[in-house]
């Protein structure tokens, strides 16, 4: 006999719920205020320049977009790989995929020089641009995951559920390939121009997505007093460790490849040795905090038995991911373009002679970037209040034997 999972909506009357809504609203208002000022005064009030073209908003936006595609992995494991153990978590996974993506895209749009021309971006297309393809991939992702969720929640559509899951899984792989290719197709920038960025971004999305998912799940269960068994946390935690290892593998191959290419020794030296904040964030932020520490917390027997270690590992992975994105996105621009190979630039009216382009993030950019989290949190909380996304109990015993494959 099949063990039915019972889902529920949030009661939505607790101080925690209203506190979350209030905090999210404050973050959103701050982000809108920042965007208004950037629109009114121009990007001169930000730390972004004609040298560092993309800044903090892009780091937050890409983090959220990667997390959105990665968080869907929980549902994909359930419906594509038939690991029914993950089935009770699939609805929350699909919901977060949509809300995190909306948060990330909102930041990206509000950072535009002309955000009022969003309608132009949605109607005028250049199909040679990977940006254009990403517009379709992002919108398509939201539509497909919404249908996937509908099939999940509607008993009559249950038989189509695996097909929808497969389409969503394939779509998310293409989507993250597209996100990585935004940088991978930049032929002139030594830090970017490589096809490795597509699998690197996919692996990064998997680790970030699962880290965000586990944190949201633990917070939700804590707030709603939903029992959450250690067993149900154990497997995703182990899987998260594998994803962290996968990210490390691609980062390693990326740097080894660049170290092998003589023309890229300059940028490699800059990132790995002499890049100041970028070197620090790579070794300490990404490697120690974002890779070694979580792997210890996940796999070392002394630590890996407690829930606190799962929370700590997830936070470390998020910090490491943001560090890696900062090193990659800002560091890749801070290292000057090589317009004149073999020449030393002795003078320039446009900073061609700079050893490194400086970037100091402004509070406006950070306000706008963090508002993406606010948008995702607000939409998630409201959706959970309206529709049943969370199981009533995730206690090991309540989940049932058929979910422990």
């Amino acid at each position, binding site marked *: 006999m099949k063990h039915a999972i019972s889902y529920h909506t949030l009661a939505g009357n607790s101080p925690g719920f209203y506190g979350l809504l209030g905090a999210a609203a404050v973050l959103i208002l701050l982000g809108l205020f920042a965007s208004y000022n950037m629109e009114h005064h121009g990007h*001169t009030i930000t730390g972004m320049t*004609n040298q560092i073209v993309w800044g903090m908003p892009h780091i937050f936006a890409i983090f959220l977009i990667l997390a959105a595609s990665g968080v869907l992995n929980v549902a994909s494991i359930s419906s594509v790989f038939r690991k029914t153990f993950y089935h009770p978590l699939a609805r929350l996974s699909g919901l977060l995929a949509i809300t995190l993506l909306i948060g990330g895209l909102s930041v990206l749009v509000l950072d535009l020089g002309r955000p009022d021309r969003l309608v132009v971006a949605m109607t005028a297309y250049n199909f040679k641009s990977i940006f*254009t393809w990403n517009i379709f991939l992002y919108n398509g992702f939201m539509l497909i995951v919404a249908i996937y969720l509908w099939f999940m929640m509607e008993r009559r559509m249950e038989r189509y559920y695996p097909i929808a899951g497969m389409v969503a899984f394939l779509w998310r792989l293409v989507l993250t390939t597209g996100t990585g290719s935004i940088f991978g197709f930049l032929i002139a920038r030594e830090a970017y121009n490589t096809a490795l960025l597509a699998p690197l971004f996919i692996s990064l999305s998997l680790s970030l997505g699962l880290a965000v998912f586990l944190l949201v799940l633990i917070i939700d269960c804590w707030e709603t007093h939903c029992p959450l068994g250690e067993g149900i946390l154990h497997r995703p935690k182990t899987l998260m460790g594998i994803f962290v290892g996968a990210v490390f593998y691609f980062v390693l191959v990326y740097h080894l490849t660049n170290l092998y290419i003589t023309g890229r020794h300059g940028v490699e030296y800059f990132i790995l040795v002499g890049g100041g904040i970028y070197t620090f964030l790579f070794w300490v932020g990404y490697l120690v905090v974002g890779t070694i520490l979580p792997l210890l917390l996940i796999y070392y027997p002394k630590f890996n038995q407690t829930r606190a270690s799962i929370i700590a590992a997830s936070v470390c992975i998020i910090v490491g991911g943001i560090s890696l994105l900062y090193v990659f996105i800002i560091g890749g621009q801070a290292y000057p373009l090589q317009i004149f190979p073999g020449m030393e630039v002795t003078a320039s*009216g*446009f900073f061609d002679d700079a050893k490194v382009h400086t970037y100091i993030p402004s509070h406006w950019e950070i306000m706008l970037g963090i508002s993406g989290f606010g948008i995702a949190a607000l939409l998630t909380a409201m959706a959970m209040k309206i529709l049943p996304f969370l199981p009533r109990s995730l206690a090991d015993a309540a989940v049932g034997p058929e979910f422990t494959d």
Partner: protein
Amino acid sequence: MKEETPIQSPKRRDFLKTTAVVAGMTVAPGVLLHSFSQVNAADAGKPVDQPVTDAVRWGMLIDTAQCSDGCNDCINACKAEHGLTESVRPEIAPQWIRKVGLKDKLTGKTYSLPVLCQHCENPPCADVCPTGASFKRADGVVLVDRHICIGCRYCMMACPYKARSLVHETLEGQRPHSPRGKGTVEGCNLCVHRIDHGHLPACVEACQTTGHQAMLFGNLKDPNSDIAKKLSQVQSTALRPDMRLNPGVRYQGL
């Protein structure tokens, strides 16, 4: 009846004469102006009422031996022509053309040269632009349509020559022939408003006025043009030729 006719005939003739004179005075200036514009258009090899074609490819040859270190006349002419003003911070100032000083790491030889949009045959900026605002005209001029530029700056990330700028500030003193807008991206447009009427780009004109003769502009596809003749005689190179973008701007002596 016969007697009355001679009286009326002169009046009619006068009326017709007067009408002809007035009509002539009214229409003549217009006809004259129209013929002047045709003359200007003929200089450009293209009537103003017809679209550009790929029969022409505009290009520029920069002779680094003639470019004087310390001379910024090309930059000043560009700023004056397009109304480019100073910014509060140099990092955000729009740059359509800049002077660069170079020193060969191996030989120690020094160079001075202007760098501007290289007007590539295969421009990466146009490839990556999501809305098609960055585009290449049939005659090889790479432009930004400010009406559909959303300010995403992906073209700035893609350009190998750092030839594009975002307008970071509110603008003042814009020129009617050079549309610009806060929040949109811009770069050298080869003075399309001038070359379409048979004039040289402002930077080239300024360089020739000062007598440096470091910038030569013309139709690369016309074997009889000065630039085509010189390119067939002297050694020239493109910036980052390894990218095979086939820029319209070439450098001699680099």
